Every structure is written in structure tokens, then in C-alpha cells.
């Protein structure tokens, strides 16, 4: 009967323990100096070697080898008995299934008896965090002053659940996550001993997905070896994990940079049809975008740990994005990864996140926005794709969020459509000169055109500053679109608000004659002014007749 790899290759001596030298060295020194504690607490994440170290320590204190440095020698009768788990003096207790105070009382009664054959009776209490409070308390006295011949080793993944009174009676050892390099080396060693051919890239992929747990890594290796392939390559590993190739992720990023929602989603669906694991895909995409962000912001290839050939390609790709856009996409995808757990939603959260990342676009064929629904919402959403409609609780996501554009700087009402259209044209044309400028201009919103002055408001200072530094290009494009040279004045939202307030009312764009009748009869207040009003209009289908309390 074959055993799982992680059981077969459990470390058997201190030298075998991977990545926990701080623990192994300390314990070895304690042995050498005959300063063995009576109670130890091993804590750390899963698969880092707690149970294994406990068994090794049990062997070492009882080993019959003459030289202390050789202990455990794994050849004396005691070591062998432990390796075959038949030593009466090593008592392993599963605290998770023996949680009650009665179990501890029984243990306490037996502690008094001297060992059968070994020097010490070693109690290994695994998953000790599951003991009940009274069980812990019943253990306290024994743990503080056990008989000479008893050693307690408590092991747990959740040290915060252990009472302080227990903690203070134990020597505590914290096991760390094992580094990828250590896992890779260990996996390669085991593959060699098992006679399994495995490519370095495959090993690295396994190690990365194990996130510091040796048991996870070995389970995965075990699973993949059971395919029975002659050589394990990275494709096989990806197949089992449901990962996609770096190439596919890169293409998806290209599509995101391209800005066409249909292309992005078609690619996503192609990947889904291939049977990709959604969470993995999101993680991979986020990782890729993170690298692009590092290249984009740092402009230094040393920041990323990639082969030179990849760096060139990724730098090119990075330049197609704006840092703000990358940040926004990463955040949105992060939210989507969490939202994937939503029941019945399937991979909808990812679809929505990618749509959001590309930017909300309206179809040009749409009829004019209905009277009661302010043009403000779609325009604002287009200008600064905010994740507000996404994955948040309805209470927060509702339009009553205080962050909704403040009244003064709210996009001008429907009458502004003409200016907005011209501005869209500016943004579109700017792409010819520099995709970077185009991207920052997308973050801008035309506020007013007064005589020869075009005021553009920016929500993010990054967009504002970049536009200011590119003002020549922007002016050129604006002149092209508007048919005359204009002074372009980029502003942040606060300045805009002050500016707008200082303008005489007739300077603001007036509603075009084609505006809907109710709007022209009396200036209907933008529902954005009042969150309650906005909810009434957008969600309940109300119509704004008047906001004057006297009239109501």
C-alpha cells in the first residue's frame, strides 16, 4: 500500500526539517546542553513541520545513541519504535476529537506513571487549540510542574486560541512559512528519489501554488505524479490547477489596454470554455497587472523578477496603461475574487469586473437619455469608471453615497451634451498623438466653455498633472475639434466648484433647444443634488416636478 508523499517523506531527523532552522538549531542546542523543557508549544501555518518536529524531538530525547549530536539516530530500538508508531511512551493525542475535560483528566491520571521503556514519556497534543476552556484549565497544574519523566509538546495552527496561562507555561516555537526556494529544492529531491522526471518550471509552479506549506506542495506533486506521465511539465500542472498560460494572461491584458469591452469578454469566454479555474485566472491576471504597474511606475526592470525577453515585452505593454487605470483594475479584480464566493453568481463577478475595468461605455445607438434619468450618471461613470455599482452592499452601493459628485461640481445637466460630445471627440483624437494623453483625458470632464476658455475638471490629481504637462498636445487637439484655438484650463474638482460658482449663470452652457419639454419649462434640479431624490428617480421611477417645498 502506497502512502501519501507527505507521510512517506516526513522528516526523520533535525537535519531533514526544511526551512525551520531557527527551531531545529535551538532544539538541538537544548539537547546538547541537557536543557530540555518540560512543555513546548509549536505554532505555525499548516504544513510547516510542527507534528514532524514533535516526533523528532520525542525521538531525540529518548534516543539511545551515545553521542548527543547523533540523536535521533533512527536506528536504535526506540527511534525505530517511534518511526513505526508503536512506542508506548510516545502518546499522540488528537485534541480536536478529545476536547473535553474528562479526556484531560484521564491524561492527567496517567502522567504519574513512569515510562515503559524510554527515558521520557512524551505527550504530543496536536490541534491543541480545540481543547475546551475547562480542559485547558484542568491541564494547567500538570503543565506547570509535570513529573520529571514527562515532556509535553503542544501543536497548533491557531496560537491565539490558547489561553495565556497555557502559553506562559510552554517554550514557544513559531514555525514559519517555507520559502519557495526551499520547497523547490525539497520537491526536486523527492522527485529524484521517487524517480519522477519534472521540469524546473513545473516544480516552481507547484511551489508557488503551495504558498509556503510543504504538505500542500507534496500533495500536489503526489496528485500529478499519479497521472503516470513519464515527464511532468508545466502544462500538466496547469491542467490540474486550472491555470492558464502566461501567454493567455498577457493577451487578456492587451485586450484590457485596447479598451474594447467586447474583445475582453470574448477572450474571457474563450478561456472559460477551455476550463480555466476562475479564481486562478483572477490571481494570475492581478499578478500580471501588478508587474505592469511596477514597470509603469518604477520604470526599472530590476523591480520585477523576470527574464530579459519578458521585460521588453511587458514594458511595451505597461506603457499602454496608465498607473491609475492599472490600480483601478487590480482593485476591481480583487473585489471580484472575493465576490466569486457569492452563491449562484458563477463567474459573473469577473465578467462585471472586466467590463468595469475597460470602462463603462454606452452604445451610441441609444436614444437620448430619458427626462427623469439624469445624463449625469452615465457621463460621470464613463469619465471616471468607479467601482461603486460593484460588489458592495446595496446600502453602500446605493446612490445615496456621500461621495457622489458634490452638487457644485456635478456634471452639467443634459444641456451639456453638445460640449460632452465635442470633448469625447477630443479624447478620441488625442489617441493619435499619444495613448497616454488619451488615457488621462478620459479622466477629465468638460465643465464650461466661456468665450475662448475651455474648463476641464479632473477628479484625480494624477490626471490633472499629466494633462498640464501635456497641455500643448491637448490644445492642439482641442483646436482641431472646436475649429478654433482655445485656452484649455485643467482644474481639480475643488477649483472647478469655485470657478463655476464665480461664473455668471448665463456663462454656463444652456440647454439646447432639443432638450425635453419638462427640462426647458423650468430648470429641473439634477437629482444628483439630493441622494434621496436621486434614488426616487433612478430606482423608483419618480419624476421631478418641483423641488420647492412651498409648491409641494
Amino acid at each position, binding site marked *: 500500500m502506497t502512502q501519501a508523499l507527505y507521510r512517506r517523506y516526513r522528516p526523520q531527523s533535525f537535519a531533514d526539517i526544511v526551512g525551520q532552522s531557527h527551531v531545529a538549531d535551538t532544539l538541538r542546542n537544548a539537547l546538547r546542553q541537557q536543557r530540555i523543557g518540560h512543555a513546548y508549544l509549536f505554532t505555525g501555518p499548516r*504544513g510547516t513541520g510542527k507534528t514532524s518536529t514533535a516526533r523528532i524531538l520525542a525521538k531525540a530525547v529518548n534516543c539511545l545513541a551515545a553521542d548527543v549530536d547523533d540523536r535521533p539516530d533512527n536506528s536504535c530500538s526506540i527511534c525505530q519504535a517511534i518511526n513505526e508508531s508503536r512506542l508506548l511512551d510516545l502518546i499522540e493525542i488528537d485534541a480536536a476529537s478529545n476536547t473535553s475535560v474528562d479526556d484531560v483528566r484521564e491524561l492527567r491520571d496517567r502522567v504519574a506513571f513512569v515510562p515503559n521503556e524510554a527515558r521520557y514519556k512524551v505527550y504530543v497534543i496536536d490541534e491543541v487549540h480545540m481543547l475546551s476552556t475547562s480542559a485547558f484549565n484542568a491541564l494547567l497544574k500538570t503543565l506547570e510542574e509535570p513529573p520529571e519523566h514527562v515532556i509535553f509538546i503542544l501543536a497548533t495552527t491557531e496560537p491565539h486560541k490558547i489561553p495565556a496561562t497555557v502559553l506562559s507555561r510552554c517554550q514557544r516555537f513559531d514555525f514559519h512559512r517555507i520559502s519557495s526556494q526551499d520547497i523547490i529544492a525539497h520537491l526536486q529531491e523527492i522527485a529524484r528519489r521517487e524517480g519522477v522526471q519534472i521540469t524546473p518550471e513545473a516544480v516552481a509552479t507547484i511551489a508557488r501554488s503551495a504558498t509556503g506549506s510543504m504538505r500542500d506542495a507534496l500533495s500536489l506533486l503526489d496528485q500529478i505524479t499519479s497521472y503516470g506521465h513519464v515527464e511532468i511539465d508545466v502544462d500538466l500542472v496547469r491542467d490540474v490547477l*486550472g491555470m492558464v498560460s502566461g501567454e493567455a494572461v498577457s493577451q487578456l491584458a492587451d485586450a484590457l489596454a485596447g479598451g474594447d469591452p467586447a474583445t475582453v469578454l470574448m477572450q474571457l469566454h474563450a478561456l472559460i470554455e477551455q*476550463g480555466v479555474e476562475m479564481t486562478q485566472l483572477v490571481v494570475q491576471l492581478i499578478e500580471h497587472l501588478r508587474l505592469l504597474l511596477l514597470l509603469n511606475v518604477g520604470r526599472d526592470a530590476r523591480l520585477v523578477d523576470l527574464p530579459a525577453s519578458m521585460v521588453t515585452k511587458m514594458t511595451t505593454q505597461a506603457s499602454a496603461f496608465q498607473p491609475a487605470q492599472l490600480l483601478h483594475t487590480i482593485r476591481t479584480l480583487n473585489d471580484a475574487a472575493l465576490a466569486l464566493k457569492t452563491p449562484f453568481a458563477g463567474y459573473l463577478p469577473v465578467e462585471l469586473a472586466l467590463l468595469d475595468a475597460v470602462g463603462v461605455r454606452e452604445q451610441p445607438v441609444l436614444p437620448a437619455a430619458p427626462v427623469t434619468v439624469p445624463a449625469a450618471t452615465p457621463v460621470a461613470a464613463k469619465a471616471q469608471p468607479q467601482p461603486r*455599482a460593484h460588489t*458592495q452592499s446595496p446600502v453602500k*452601493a446605493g*446612490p445615496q453615497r456621500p461621495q457622489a459628485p458634490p452638487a457644485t461640481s456635478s456634471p452639467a445637466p443634459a444641456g451639456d451634451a453638445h460640449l460632452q460630445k465635442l470633448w469625447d471627440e477630443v479624447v478620441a483624437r488625442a489617441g493619435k498623438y499619444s495613448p497616454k494623453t488619451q488615457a488621462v483625458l478620459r479622466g477629465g470632464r468638460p465643465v464650461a466653455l466661456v468665450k475662448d476658455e475651455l474648463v476641464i475638471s479632473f477628479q484625480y490629481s494624477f490626471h490633472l498633472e499629466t494633462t498640464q504637462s501635456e497641455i500643448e498636445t491637448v490644445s492642439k487637439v482641442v483646436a482641431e475639434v472646436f475649429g478654433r484655438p482655445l485656452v484649455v484650463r485643467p482644474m481639480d474638482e475643488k477649483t472647478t466648484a469655485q470657478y463655476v460658482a464665480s461664473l455668471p449663470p448665463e456663462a454656463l452652457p444652456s440647454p439646447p433647444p432639443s432638450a425635453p419639454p419638462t427640462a426647458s419649462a423650468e430648470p429641473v434640479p439634477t437629482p444628483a443634488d439630493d441622494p434621496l431624490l436621486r434614488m426616487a428617480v433612478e430606482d423608483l421611477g419618480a419624476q421631478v416636478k418641483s423641488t420647492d417645498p412651498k409648491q409641494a
Partner: protein
Amino acid sequence: MPTDDIIHVYGHRWAQDLLRAAVLARRTSHAYLFTGADHIGKTTLARAFAQALTCTSPGEQGLGGCGQCRSCHLAALQAHPDHRSIVPEKGKIRVDAVREIIHEATLSPIEGQFKVFIITAFDRANPNAANALLKTLEEPSASTRILLISSQSANLLPTITSRCQIVNLRPLSTETVARALQENWQVPTELAQLLAGLSRGRLGWAVEMATQPAAWESYQLQFQRMQALPRQGVVERMTLAAELARGDDIESILQPWLLFWRDVLFLQQTGPQLVLHRDQLSALQDLAQRTQPAAVRRFLAALMQTATYSRQNVSLQLAMESLLLKVPVSS
């Protein structure tokens, strides 16, 4: 269905190959965790694997069960004495049930080589129950095989998952689902295509729709209800909310709605290529033109939030009322 007693699994080729290879090479692991969305085929795969494990002459087909021997026959009838199936009682897996497993896992198999435990919806195990299983899951007796199943594997303790070989099932391709529906459930091509798309790769769901007329009718009813909602007033919405809250299967309500508005949003933002409800294209297109994308997105977020609420302790009627008030208004 095939005439022999092989438990058939569609798709998930890689998982089938993996498990069969392990069976044939006699190197199956002591614990497996089958994860993936609901109705994706986890339990079927686990049952087929259990059949292969206890089969007396495993072969190259499917997961390895021969479908001829007495063992396979019993497994197909779900009457194998060495197969133990554990399902949540009243929505929970309790520590007593786990203690029973721990005890039984120490006993020898009755018929063959292995005793196989299939534990469904293990995410429903409370912390005590999950922790109680840890040691058994790590080093059970040589003749024990534990197969855990969970659609919410993120809710499992990391100490549980790291002790198992994880078989994470992904959605099947639309084509696989459509083909399976046509071949084995004799679904007409057009309907098969439609259901395959709507199932989003979950064959179990598509089969349920295809074989239980009531389920498919209910789906269409919810679709039509949602179609009418954007034009309806508060009173009608409240009445509907009260009615819906009385039913207990919230999934059969929310899922059609999620896909409905997803399609509307996709029509607004990417065009018709990726729309799932192909049969309702014109109606959806009409709505797409009459609603605001931002409002649709907000509603989708609200739908997902309600789906999350439905798994928590909330008043269903309040949740429904609040949801229906948010249905985007059509002009």
C-alpha cells in the same frame, strides 16, 4: 444511459484521467477533496471514483470501474456496504456524525479492499466537527479512503484542505454540456444549446432543467416576471416580493434574474455576441435601450448581495422587497 453499471461522468477529462491512473497504479491517496460550483458534477465524480476504488477488476474506461462486477453493481445501486455517504443533517454536519466516521474508519472493509466515505457539503461541518476529523484525515488506516465534497471550499479549514488531494472541478465547456444533453437525455439541439449556455458549464443544472419540466417552467416564469418588473409600480413589486418570499428556493429566483440582467448589460456594452438567452434577444434588446447601464450594474450588485444574504440569517421578505424596489426603471 449506458446499459452497464458504470457511473458515468461527462467532461472533467483531466480529473477522470488523474483518478483512473491512480486507481490502476494502486496509488490512490487516503483523502480527496472535490470542489467546484454547485451542480458541476462533484458528487457524480466522487461516486464514480468510489466505484472504481472498490471494483474488483478496474479497467481503462471512465474512472476505472468495470461496471460488471458485483462491487460495481452494488455501487451503482448505492448499496455497497463499504461505501458510506454522509450528508448534512438539518443543514449541518455535526461532531457526532464525524465521530461515527472516525470510529468506522478504524474498522476493516466488509467486501473489498477499501472503505470509502463520501462526505457531501463538508463546508457545512461546524468547526468542532471539522477539527475532529483532522487526525483521521491526515493518517487514516490503510484501507480507508475519505472523499470530501464542497462547493464552498473557501469556507473549509486550511488544515483540512492541506490534508487532501484537491480535485477542483471547473465549469464544462458549453459544447460538452450541449452534447451530453443531446446524447444522453435526448434533448432537442436548440434547447440543448440554450440550456448549455445558461448552465454556465454546470451539467447537473442543465440536466435538471431538461428532465424536470417544472424546473424549466419555473425558470421561464421568473424570467417573465423580471421582464415585466421594470414597468411595474411599487404596489405590484411589493405584492410580488411577498409572494416570492414565501417560496423557499431562492436560487431558482435569483439565478434567472442574474442572467437576465447580465444579458441586458452585455447588450448595452458589448453587443449581442455573448448573450445567453438567445431565444429572448429582441425583448432583451428592447430593455437594453430603455435602461441605463449604471442602473443595471447597481441592480446586478444588489442581486449578488441578496444571494449572499440568502445564505445568512435575514428576513427573506425584507430582502426581496428591498431588491425589487431597486429593479431598474425602463423609460
